[in-house]
């Protein structure tokens, strides 16, 4: 026990004397939460549009000003032919072109007015959203002009459960926590262990009377504490700055956090048993884990929309299960009675990687 404490002290010294690493470890989550909270958004705001108004009558002007009155669209330029529009698309000056035919008012009363919405669909997502918004505004305009009143109306009342204001940050905070924990736990432990190999200090440790188990525990415990601290920082930011709710049980969340960190640490140890160089350990952690963790775990893209093969593949990522757990606890207020399958999955990861690492752990170096 005393050996272990001494060893952990040594590890903490290693970590704390490297102030740049520490700065990034704690700066990173904060920067990410703010980026996701404020900058990364799918909400359309001030999309640049161009208008080619071939009639220039009262009716067309009314429609245009109606479209520009919203927050969604902003007039970038006025076009006079299709070439103007094409050029603007090609240089990225606008994303939508509204083409109004000649004699719009006259055609409107003849019920024969064709409006073209030309969209830059090189970004299909935006094109879709913009076309929906513009069509909606035009439909409203028609209803107003015609004083249209439909009998037998079906009205839909919507309730946005869990997130009434549709804040993006509710989705991202659980994801950012997960990614940061993966970085700190998996990446840093795999590097810490391979660095000892690369520097040759691993041999010193191995010939010492310390048992291999103690070496590994001593190596990873500091990172567990760092990870926990990081998770707290992100959570506190989420609660205070972005007013995230916490409907579930704090103790349960803490328990799940520790479980996930242990899973991530066991993956880190496993990687380090497989490689001798920091660069390789880092590339594996980053490329094989980080991008999939960000893209396949449901952090940004909904898993349900992926092809079947990828939906199956996403099950090999502990992050996927952890994101479900964090959302469940914080936003839905559910407990183990709902989240037991995900919790079991994470425990499964811990077992698999611990067993694999023990099998791979070699007390002798090549």
């Amino acid at each position, binding site marked *: 026990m005393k050996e272990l404490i001494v060893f952990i002290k040594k590890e903490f010294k290693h970590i704390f004397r490297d102030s740049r*690493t520490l700065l*990034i470890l704690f700066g*990173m989550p904060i920067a*990410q939460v703010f980026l996701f909270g404020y*900058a990364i*958004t799918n*909400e359309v705001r001030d*999309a*640049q549009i161009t208008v080619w108004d071939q009639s220039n009558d009262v009716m067309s002007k009314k429609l245009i000003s109606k479209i520009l009155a919203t927050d969604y669209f902003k007039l970038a330029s006025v076009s006079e032919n299709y070439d103007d529009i094409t*050029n603007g*698309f*090609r*240089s*990225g000056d606008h*994303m939508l072109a509204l083409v109004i035919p000649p004699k719009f008012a006259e055609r*409107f*009363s003849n*019920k024969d007015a064709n*409006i073209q*919405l030309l*969209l830059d*669909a*090189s970004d*299909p*997502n*935006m094109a879709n959203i913009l076309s*929906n918004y513009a069509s909606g505004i*035009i439909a409203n*305009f*028609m209803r107003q*002009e015609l004083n249209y009143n439909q*009998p*037998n*109306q*079906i009205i*839909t*009342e*919507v309730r*946005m459960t869990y*997130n009434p204001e*549709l804040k993006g940050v*509710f*989705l991202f905070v659980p994801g950012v926590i997960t990614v940061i924990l993966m*970085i700190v736990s998996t990446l840093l432990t795999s*590097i810490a262990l391979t*660095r000892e190999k690369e520097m040759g200090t691993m041999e010193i440790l191995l010939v010492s009377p310390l048992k291999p188990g103690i070496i590994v525990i001593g190596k990873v415990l500091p990172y567990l504490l760092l990870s926990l601290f990081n998770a707290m920082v992100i959570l506190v930011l989420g609660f205070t700055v972005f007013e995230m709710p916490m409907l579930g049980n704090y103790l349960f969340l803490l328990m799940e956090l520790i479980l996930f960190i242990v899973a991530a640490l066991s993956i880190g140890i496993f990687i380090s048993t497989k490689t001798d160089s920091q*660069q390789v350990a*880092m590339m*594996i952690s*980053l*490329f*094989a884990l980080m*991008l999939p963790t960000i893209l396949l775990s449901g952090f940004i893209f*909904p898993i*349900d*929309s*992926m092809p079947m*093969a990828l939906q199956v*593949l996403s099950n090999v990522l502990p992050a996927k299960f952890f994101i479900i757990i964090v959302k469940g606890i914080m936003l839905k207020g*559910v407990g183990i009675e709902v989240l037991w399958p995900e919790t079991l999955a994470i425990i499964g990861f811990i077992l698999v990687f611990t067993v694999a690492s023990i099998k791979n752990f070699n007390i002798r170096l090549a």
Partner: protein
Amino acid sequence: MRRIKFLLKKEFKQIFRNKAMLPLIFVMPVIQLLILVNAATFEIKNIDVAVLDQDHSQTSKAIVNKLLSTGYYRIVENVANLKDGQLLMDQNKIDLLLQFPSKFESDLQRDNKAVIMLDVSAIDGSAASIIYYYTNSIIFDFNTSLVQKWHNLPTNLSLPIKVENRYWFNEELDYKNYITPGLVVILVTMIGMFLSSMNIVREKEMGTIEQLNVTPITKSQFIISKLTPFWIIGMFEMAFGLGVGKLIFDFPILGSVPLLFAFSAIYLVVILSMGLIISTITNTQQQAMLISWFLLVIFILMSGLFTAVENMPEWAQKITAFNPVTYFMQLIRMVLLKGSEFKHVVHHFVIMSVMAVVSVVLALVTYRKRA
């Protein structure tokens, strides 16, 4: 010149003798591309629904059938009360709970108004609003045809304005066309940045930098010999990624490929010099990696890979003006998907060239021939 040749030989040997790195540099990106392109979609294909029908009327059933006929909705369960529906949502089994109150149909006939309650699971706010708008528009369509039937109106009640949507450059709204070039940029950037940022610092950690420092190599020779190998790898990676992406996902190439490569040639100088700067100011590979990771995350998230830069708040857009990845991200899509020519992207070239000059000068200044 001869010195540079020898130095280049040395660098290439160091890169290629590391057998574990090679597959990571060349195979991993391709696998990543294949998997991630398929994963990265905001499209909503399956909306899982629970129905709480307290009316059991023809109309309520017809609405449910109408939703099912679109192919986007899947009925998971018909629930008997609100609590069961809520539980299903808590368990992540449904995205939408559709409630028809009792007397829905008779209300509709008698009072001219009837309410359907839609409960949407809104943790993912943008998906929730798409689900809501989509469901709403289907119900609205249903409503219109129902009224026509009930009141015996002509079925093609014509509206004064017909809106015709034309999706230029990507008629089928294929998200893969959009995301594949973007991911190629990301992979090239990540590999370039990591390899270069780990390079000098590794020599520092191993102690071999001192041997280089005592040689008569000048600073610029040193920087050139460090940049060139990664530049070649980066250009190769770019061609390779684009080639594989084109073969598999068959995105359109409307513009000039040489124009694209001319830009990536400048772009790589910027990214690699940044990597080298990181490498000279750090002491351990771990630091170098974390700093480059930190920069990359911010660069990538703010590059417009997934979410359009145009949607960002003003201050964030000002920051992205300094983000090299944003320019490349825009340019590759403009050239490939829209066929933009040089005159459309002069702005991008000018800014990237300025960035290249500044970063190379900075790399030269920060590197000192001291340990």
